C-alpha cells in the first residue's frame, strides 16, 4: 500500500490532527443536540480562540524563550485564554444571530443563513482589525522530535495537543454526564418542550451549551495556532473537517465526536500518502459523503439528536 512506508508517522500526525477535530466537533455536536441545527459559525469561534491566545501569549511571553515549568504555565495560559475567547464569541453569537430568530420561531433556513452571515462577518472583521497576514504565536517551548515510537517521530507539539485535548475531552464528557448543567443539556436535547415544562430554563441551557462548545473550540484554536500561526481565515477548513468528524461519530453524540475526529485525522493523513497533498480535503469530503449516504447516523448513532 502507498502508506505502509510511513504508516506510523502518518498515524502520529493524524492523531494530532484528530484531537483538534474532536475538540471542535464537540461544539457542533452539543449545539446540534440542543438546537437541532448546525452552527455554521463555529469555525469563527475556533478562530477567535486562536487570536485571543495569540494576544495573551504575545503579551506574556514577548521575545523571551521559556523553559520547563514556565512552558507548561504558558501553555495552560494559552489554552485558557483561547477557551475564554472562544466562549465569549460563542455566547455573543448565540445572543445576536440565534436568539432573536428562536424567539420568533423562524424557519430553520433562517438560522442557517444567519449563521453563515455571522461567520462571514466575524472572520472578515478579524481580518480588518488584526490584519490579513498570518501571525505567529510566540512558542512557549522549542518544538522538535522528542522520541520515536514504531519508527515514528513524535514532536513536542503533538504531545502538547494530545495532553491538552485529552484533559478537556474527559472534562466535558464528565460535565455532560454528571453535573446539573449536563443534565439540563441532555434534557433539552431530548425534548425541549418537556424540559421547559419541568422548569429548565431553556435560554440559559442553550447559552451554556454554546459556551462549553466555545471553550473547547477556542482552546482548539490555540492548539492549532501553536504550530501554524493564526489568521482570520483559519477557521473554515478545520471546522468543515470537524463537522465531518461529528457526522462520522454521530451528530449529537459526544463520544462519537471524539472517535470521529480521531478516525478522520488518521484517515486523512493516510489518504494523503496515497494521493497528492492537494487532495487532502477531497479525502475528508469523500468520507463525509460516504458516511452520509451509507450510515447517516454515524458510527455511534445519534444519541441526543433525532435520526433522519
Amino acid at each position, binding site marked *: 500500500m502507498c502508506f505502509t*512506508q510511513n504508516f506510523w508517522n502518518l498515524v502520529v500526525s*493524524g492523531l*494530532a490532527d484528530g484531537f483538534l477535530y474532536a475538540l471542535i466537533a464537540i461544539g457542533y455536536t452539543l449545539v446540534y443536540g440542543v438546537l437541532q441545527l448546525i452552527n455554521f459559525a463555529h469555525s469563527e469561534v475556533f478562530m477567535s480562540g486562536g487570536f485571543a491566545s495569540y494576544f495573551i501569549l504575545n503579551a506574556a511571553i514577548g521575545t523571551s524563550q521559556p523553559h520547563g515549568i514556565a512552558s507548561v504555565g504558558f501553555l495552560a495560559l494559552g489554552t485558557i485564554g483561547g477557551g475564554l475567547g472562544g466562549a465569549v464569541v460563542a455566547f455573543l453569537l448565540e445572543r445576536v444571530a440565534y436568539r432573536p430568530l428562536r424567539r420568533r420561531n423562524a424557519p430553520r433556513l433562517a438560522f442557517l443563513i444567519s449563521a453563515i452571515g455571522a461567520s462571514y462577518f466575524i472572520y472578515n472583521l478579524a481580518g480588518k482589525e488584526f490584519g490579513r497576514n*498570518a501571525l*505567529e504565536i510566540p512558542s512557549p517551548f522549542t*518544538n522538535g522530535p522528542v522520541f520515536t515510537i514504531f519508527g515514528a517521530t513524535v514532536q513536542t507539539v503533538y504531545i502538547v495537543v494530545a495532553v491538552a485535548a485529552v484533559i478537556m475531552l474527559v472534562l466535558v464528557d464528565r460535565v455532560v454526564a454528571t453535573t446539573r448543567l449536563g443534565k439540563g443539556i441532555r434534557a433539552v436535547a431530548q425534548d425541549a418542550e418537556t424540559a421547559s415544562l419541568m422548569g429548565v430554563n431553556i435560554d440559559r441551557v442553550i447559552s451554556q451549551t454554546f459556551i462549553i462548545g466555545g471553550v473547547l473550540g477556542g482552546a482548539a484554536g490555540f492548539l492549532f495556532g501553536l504550530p501554524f500561526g493564526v489568521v482570520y*481565515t*483559519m477557521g473554515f477548513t478545520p471546522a468543515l473537517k470537524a463537522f465531518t468528524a461529528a457526522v462520522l461519530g454521530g451528530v449529537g453524540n459526544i463520544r462519537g465526536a471524539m472517535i470521529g475526529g480521531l478516525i478522520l485525522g488518521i484517515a486523512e*493523513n493516510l489518504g494523503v500518502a496515497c494521493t497528492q*497533498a492537494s487532495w487532502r480535503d477531497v479525502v475528508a469530503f469523500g468520507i463525509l459523503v460516504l458516511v452520509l449516504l451509507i450510515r447517516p447516523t454515524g458510527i455511534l448513532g445519534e444519541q441526543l439528536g433525532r435520526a433522519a
Partner: protein
Amino acid sequence: MNRITLRFVAPVAAAAVALAGVGSAQVAAASNAHASTPTYTIAYEGPLSGGNAQLGLNMKFAVQLAISQANAGKTFGKLPFKLKFLAEDDQGSATQSPAAAQAVISNSSVVAVVGPAFSGATKAAEPLYHAANLATVSPSATAPALATQGWSNFFRVVADDNAQGPGDATYVVKKLGVKKIYTVDDASAYAVGLVGAFDAKAKQLGATVTHQEAPGTTQCQAGTGNVQQYGALATQIKGSGDPVTFYAGYYCDFALLAKALRADGYNGQLMSDDGSLDPHYVSEAGASVANGTLLSCACTNLTSSKVDTTFASQFKKLAGFPVGTYSAEAYDATNTIIKAMEKIGAHVKRSALVKGLHKVVYAGLTKTVHFQPDGNIAGSTVYIYQVKNGSIVELGPVAKLVG
C-alpha cells in the same frame, strides 16, 4: 442641529481617510501650467483593494513616483510633454479586470499602461488592450503563456516563470552536485509553471525528481490548501531522504513547510523562489529554521545596496511605507515607457508607442530593459540568495556561481 452635523461629519471624515488610504481616484501628478505642451496619461492597472491590495500598492506608488520625477525633469531632463497618472483597481481578479481595462482604454489621453499586475487579470484584459493597440508593460505578470498569444502590445520587465526554474535547477544540480531532488509547488499559476520548468531542467541534467503539490493556504495567498498538510508532507519528504527540497510558492507557506520539516528532523537543504524572497520568511520560520535556506530571483534584491537608495527613500516619502515586492520593477516599467515616449517626441500615439517599446533600451534599477519580439524581457539573469544569520544575502548570478 448638532446631531445632524455630527451625523454627516462622521462619514465624510471617514471617507476622507479612505480616500487618502486607498486613493483609487485619479491623481493628477502634473499641473497644466503649459497649455501648449501636450499632456499624456500613463495608467496603472492592478489590485488596489481586496486580498492582494498590498502588492498592488507597492507598484502603484512606484509608478506615481516615476511619473512625478519625470515631470520634474529629474529622470530624463526636460520632456516635450507633461505626464499624468491614472490608477485603476482590478482587485487582481480576471472577472474585474476587463472593466478596469475599459476604464483605461476609454480615457483617450492614456498612451501606455503599467500592468496588469496579475497573470489571470492580464489574460482577461489583454485582448481589450490589444484591440485598442495600447501598450501594456507588466511589472509582475510572469505566466509564460502571456507572451505566446500574439499580443504585440504586451511587454513585461520581469522574467517569466520559465526563466527562473531552469536557473535554479542548474544551480542545484551543477553547483550543489545533488542528484535527488524533492520539489513541492503551491498549486498557484505562478508556482506550477515554475516548478514544471525546474523539474524538466533538473531531469535533463540527470537528476531524479519527486514532485508533490501542496496547495497554498488561506493563511498566505488565497488558496484552497490547509496548513495541516505540511505535517504529512514533511513526513514524506523526510522518508524520501532527498538531500534538497525545492519549494515553488510564497514565503508564508514555505515557512510552514520549513518548520514542519525541521521539527520532523529533516536535515536537507531547503530552497525556494522569488515568492519566498521576503524577510517575512525568516521571521515566520524563525532564524534557526531559516538559516542556510537558498532563495532565488530573476531580480536583484531590494534589500541589497544595489537598489538606488534615493528611489527607496523617495518611495517611502510618497507611499508612507517602504518599497516592497515589485516596486522597483514597476518603477523601471514606467521609466521604460517614458524613455520610449521621449524618443518619439511631442506627439505620442498609442500605436507609435507600441512600436517604440519594441526598440527601446533602458538601464533600469533592476536590469537593463530590452524587449524580445514576443514582449518578454531579453537576457534575464537568475540570482541566488541565502539566509545567513537571519538575513538574506546575495550569492550572485547562477551563471557566475556555476562557472
